[in-house]
């Protein structure tokens, strides 16, 4: 019986439980639902939940744990001298799994009986048989592999059977227990609501645990990297020249410089434009204008960044070359190619405008009308009121918005990959191609480097650095936003 079949059985049991629980509750109250503690459907849900939740939890854990345990026990059957490292072992193990699955398929397709398959110990000709069934194997099957595959099948079959029995037994036990407890005085509503609460807590924990998991994987790989490459050279090295043959210099400074330079230009574009747009929208625009302009601005936020990247590469870059390149309008020769810090920065700035404007607009709107009235009532003009009362009151929140935009800029990848070029260099000229931390993470991991080499692992150290920077920015932004809330309330 497959796991999905098992799931269906449990769900069917739960559905029956719902109906029976409801019926039992009603009959215990003499058919009058007013004598019940809770509404009848709560009793139904109570039985259904008791049937479903423990059984499905066990099923879930089993599905995760069984392959791990079987894998570990089968691995011991592979002689240690037949593989050189963890990479080869995992290749052998995938062969083992494929052979085991192939044998199962052969039985299912009536190519051989179950007993024949179980007794098979000679790999001769098996590759051909399995190949005919669509299970392709890279090489001839070793006898040890076949033995391991047989062991794998046995363990798998036993595990699955135990699992099925256990899950169904649990479902029935939950069903019986909840059904027996169902009577008019049972507080089914409270029980069900507690279940809902657990569900909510579970959802919240999944989100947090995933974050923790991501951070942990970053940390482990970063530590691994620093074991292979000195941290001092990484943090203070001014050259970035990875060579996959070894002996590469992996200094983060040129990348960090590129990141910060591009983010700076992006913010220099986005902050004034976004802020002025927000002030216009929140203070001057009529409700009708605001109603159309604000969503239109927010459309910018919905454009995929790869589209911005194309825009940078195909439109903005050539445009800038026409102005600043040799033979350009200005007659200067500052810009060699279309990809440059300026190209990426300008386009990223355009991308960030809606972030700044939308958040700032909300924050400016949150400044109480009584502040504006107070200022206008003293004979201040609208612009004086905005400059001297509304804007200072909103400033901490606006700074928070800008910092959020900044962390977005630092983490941006696609625009940089397409717009900024790939050369890691420390230069002040904004018309030169540079690259950023994110772009280099992409190029380090998409090559065919060995995953255990420092050239690939450096991506995790880069990611970790970036993560720490944006985390600090975000915490700082949140801190400022929170502080600002206290100011006029």
């Amino acid at each position, binding site marked *: 019986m497959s796991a999905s079949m098992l799931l269906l059985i449990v769900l069917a049991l739960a559905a029956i439980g719902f109906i029976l629980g409801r019926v039992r509750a009603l009959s215990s109250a003499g058919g009058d639902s007013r004598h019940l503690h809770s509404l009848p459907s709560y009793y139904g849900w109570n039985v259904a939940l008791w049937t479903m939740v423990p059984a499905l939890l066990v099923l879930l854990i089993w599905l995760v744990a069984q392959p791990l345990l079987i894998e570990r026990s089968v691995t011991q059957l592979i002689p240690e001298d037949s593989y050189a490292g963890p990479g080869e072992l995992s290749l052998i193990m995938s062969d083992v799994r494929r052979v085991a699955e192939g044998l199962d398929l052969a039985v299912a397709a009536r190519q051989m009986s179950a007993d024949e398959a179980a007794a098979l110990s000679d790999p001769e000709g098996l590759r051909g048989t399995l190949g005919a069934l669509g299970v392709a194997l890279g090489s001839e099957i070793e006898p040890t592999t076949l033995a391991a595959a047989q062991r794998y099948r046995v363990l798998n079959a036993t595990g699955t059977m135990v699992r099925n029995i256990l899950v169904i037994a649990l479902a029935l036990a939950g069903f019986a227990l909840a059904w027996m407890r169902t009577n008019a005085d049972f507080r089914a509503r409270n029980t069900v609501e507690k279940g809902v609460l657990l569900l909510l807590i579970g959802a919240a924990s999944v989100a947090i645990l995933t974050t923790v998991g991501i951070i942990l994987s970053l940390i482990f790989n970063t530590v691994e990297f620093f074991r292979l490459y000195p941290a001092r050279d990484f943090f203070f090295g001014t050259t970035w020249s990875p060579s996959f043959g070894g002996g590469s210099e992996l200094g983060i400074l040129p990348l960090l410089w590129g990141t910060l330079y591009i983010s700076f230009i992006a913010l220099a574009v986005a902050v004034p434009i976004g802020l002025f747009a927000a002030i216009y929208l929140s203070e001057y625009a*009529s*409700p009708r204008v605001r109603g159309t302009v604000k969503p239109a601005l927010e459309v910018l936020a919905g454009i995929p960044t790869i589209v911005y990247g194309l825009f940078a590469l195909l439109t903005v870059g050539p445009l800038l070359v026409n102005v600043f390149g040799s033979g350009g309008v200005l007659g200067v020769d500052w810009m060699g190619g279309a990809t440059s810090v300026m190209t990426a920065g300008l386009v990223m700035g355009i991308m960030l405008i809606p972030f700044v404007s939308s958040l700032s607009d909300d924050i400016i709107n949150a400044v*109480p009308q*009584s*502040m*504006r*009235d*107070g*200022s*206008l*009532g*003293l*004979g*201040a*003009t609208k612009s*004086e009121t905005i400059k*001297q*009362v509304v804007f*200072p*009151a909103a400033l901490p929140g606006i700074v928070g918005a800008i910092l959020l935009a900044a962390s977005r800029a630092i983490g941006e990848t696609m625009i940089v990959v397409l717009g900024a070029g790939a050369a890691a260099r420390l230069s002040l000229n904004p018309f030169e191609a540079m690259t950023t931390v994110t772009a280099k993470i992409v190029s380090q991991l998409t090559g065919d480097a060995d995953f255990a080499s420092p050239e690939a692992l450096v991506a995790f150290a880069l990611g970790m650095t970036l993560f720490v920077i944006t985390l600090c920015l975000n915490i700082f932004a949140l801190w400022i936003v929170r502080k600002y809330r206290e*100011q*006029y309330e």
Partner: protein
Amino acid sequence: MYDSPKAEAKLDQKEIKIAAEGVQVFYGDTHAIKDVNVQIEDKTVTAFIGPSGCGKSTFLRCLNRMNDTIDSCRVEGNIRLDGEDIYDKRVDPVQLRAKVGMVFQKPNPFPKSIYDNIAYGPRIHGLAKNKADLDDIVERALKRGAIWNEVKDRLHAPGTGLSGGQQQRLCIARAVATEPEVLLMDEPCSALDPIATGQVEELIDELRENYSVVIVTHSMQQAARVSQKTAFFHLGNLVEYGETGQIFTKPQDPRTESYITGRIG
């Protein structure tokens, strides 16, 4: 453009500061103020009383054109300050509001220091020649707002850190600092406790020496305590206007009588 001698004679020879004739106010399609005529005297406290939604705050906000900031609001009729039509096209509402200060229902100090709160108006209107002058203006305003002694040691602390009553007196001081001629107060004590209310009322009485004060209030006791003239509004109409003592003891209109005795409201 000058007030009729007849009205002046009727109102105890005190100078008329604001004269409103046939004022109508509409919010969209709602007719909020219906044909109100009133003459507000200089150096007098005038109270507007009436049940909620009767239009007294709306009318008050007409007197310094604060209703201009509400898009759907339309004002008709004629309001003259010292004989000049304040709704004339040539009048700058910003200049007008400097002359006709306003204190709001909820204390609304700016999230700035106490000093900067008071100095806000004088700075905008360029009333101070230098720093010492500004210090002087701030001190005078705080003294007139009867809050100087409580804040003189912490002028650079945030104004929002004061108690509700102190905040309201700060707001009054802030309004006074721009040297207005008329002070409009929209239920200035509704967010305050009795002690703070007492302090603000005392302050209003003192302000009468220099300004014409118009106060909207829900409390008839307050109107009786602080005002010399009272106007009773009901459903957008000005029902009765006269000496405070007369309104509260011998009301002419049955609606006024019902309201002050608590039968309508």
